[in-house]
């Protein structure tokens, strides 16, 4: 707390009378809520007495929708959950379905998956950094971040034909063969990227206004966070070295050399530093993936799951039959249930899929990381000033798409 505020502390701490309290609705259209979140704030002057988030404005019934789609069609729904980390969602869903099927994916396909998921992490963190700085009043960072994000979206477009709703990672491998010249494109981006991070840091890390707005703001104890279901960079900024990529290696993360950055200050500034370092580490993984990319197939040898090549369909009867079967009735998945987690840019993303042996999932439950993270708002907001709540909410990096589903 700055000294000039400390002087006022006794007056601020005095129990407000009922008449001085005011209830304020922040959102659902407030720009700092990044989507459609409403926070009901009870105020005494500028001090928050209680902050209660209200979600559900973006509820689209995706979990219900999964039950009437085949496993192949379900991939397109996963894109639309967390719209800043589409490939992480494709990835987690595919891993879950593959575990139900008992399908082994070729190493080269896994490496491309990891590379794309790490690019997604960079891309998502760039949107977070830009909008977070924008909330606190730093306009220029946003423009810089969007510039690099555009490069990544172009890479996604090159791979899948889509900038955001990629549906590129599918059960059985990838949707399409990786395009010609992708490696040059990615390496060109990754060569230039570390200096771009330096550029953002030169704008913010030692910026007095930035430090004033973020240091010592938004504290919440680690015990509270774990109890409230918070994961991801939030707990890593509180000294908890937990990352599903390291501790629970899915796909081929075990083969890559990278660090899990942590801080102990547990404030908005520490969360900023953790995410900046995560971008550097993701760039390292992407570089390793491109340089050491193993040769091999981009899909598993499972014609009943992977859509056949268009060319083969014109010449081979079996390919045509498999294509017809997959498109019309889908593939049957053995009975069972799995809960697959991956580390999405925001924390732990989980897919719980129950199969009853047919070609459509019996039940799909998605645990979005933002759903857990948002529960911390009442604890984090209590006793803060309104402007600090904006900074704290920005540091949580939530996406309402995977909260409301």
């Amino acid at each position: 707390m700055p000294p000039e505020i400390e002087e006022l502390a006794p007056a601020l701490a005095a129990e407000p009378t009922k008449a001085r309290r005011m209830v304020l609705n922040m959102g659902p259209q407030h720009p700092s809520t990044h989507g459609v979140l409403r926070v009901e704030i009870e105020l005494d002057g500028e001090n928050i007495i209680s902050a209660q988030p209200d979600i559900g404005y973006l509820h689209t019934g995706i979990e219900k929708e999964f039950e009437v789609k085949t496993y192949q069609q379900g991939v397109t729904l996963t894109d639309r959950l967390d719209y800043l980390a589409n490939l992480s969602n494709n990835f987690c869903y595919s891993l879950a379905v593959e575990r139900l099927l008992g399908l082994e994916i070729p190493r080269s396909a896994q490496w491309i998956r990891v590379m794309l998921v790490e690019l997604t992490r960079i891309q998502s963190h760039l949107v977070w950094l830009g909008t977070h700085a924008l909330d606190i009043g730093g306009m220029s960072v946003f423009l810089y971040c969007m510039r690099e994000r555009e490069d990544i979206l172009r890479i996604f477009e090159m791979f899948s034909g889509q900038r955001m709703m990629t549906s590129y990672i599918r059960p059985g491998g990838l949707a399409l063969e990786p395009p010609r010249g992708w490696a040059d494109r990615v390496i060109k981006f990754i060569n230039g990227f570390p200096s771009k991070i330096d550029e953002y840091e030169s704008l913010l890390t030692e910026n007095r206004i930035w430090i004033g707005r973020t240091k010592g703001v938004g504290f919440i104890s680690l015990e509270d966070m774990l109890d409230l279901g918070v994961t991801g960079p939030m707990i890593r900024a509180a000294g908890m070295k937990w990352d599903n990529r390291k501790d629970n290696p899915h796909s081929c993360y075990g083969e890559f050399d990278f660090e899990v950055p942590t801080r102990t200050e547990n404030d908005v500034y520490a969360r900023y530093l953790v995410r900046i370092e995560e971008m550097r580490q993701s760039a390292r993984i992407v570089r390793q993936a491109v340089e050491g990319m193993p040769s091999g197939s981009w899909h598993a040898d499972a014609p009943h799951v992977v859509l056949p090549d268009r060319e083969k369909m014109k010449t081979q009867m079996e390919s045509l039959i498999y294509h017809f079967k997959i498109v019309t009735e889908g593939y049957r998945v053995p009975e069972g249930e799995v809960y697959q987690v991956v580390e999405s840019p925001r924390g732990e993303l989980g897919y719980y899929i129950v199969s009853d042996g047919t070609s459509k999932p019996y039940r799909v439950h998605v645990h979005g990381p933002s759903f857990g993270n948002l529960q911390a708002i009442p604890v984090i907001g209590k006793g803060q000033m309104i402007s600090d709540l904006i900074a704290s909410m920005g540091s949580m990096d939530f996406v309402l798409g995977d909260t409301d589903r």
Partner: protein
Amino acid sequence: MLPESLSEYPAAVLVADAITAGKYDRGELTLEIEPSRIVEVCGKLKREMDFIRLSTVTAVDRYPIEPRFEVVYHLHSLSRNDRIRLKVRVGGPKPSVDSVTSVWRSANWYEREVFDLFGIHINNHPDLRRIMMPDHWEGHPLRKDYPITGARV
């Protein structure tokens, strides 16, 4: 009663007397717990097996089988890097299950979601309101007998 095949899992042994069924499949341990003892079992697993995180709470509707609902809890221990799935079967005209918010505060929203989308009443919940659907909504969308299209908007 502890199934023979699960005797090597310490978490299963710890709460053996409350287990009605269980399995170990695809690397995941699933235990079915007597509905009346879920809070006690969760508390015990948190205290003695260090399951400090509740990853999710959700439900599966097995309509028309009775009891039709499985309430599913995914527990996570960071120190031992372990996960476990607990299940409780509830049914009848007014299905209900006890709240585990006294064990993990994160259960608050997770259970509200189960209440909202499945219509399973959560006993002793501190703030039981709809969370996704509007407050005046009729019906519970994730039930299997709720239509996917044709509902009045």
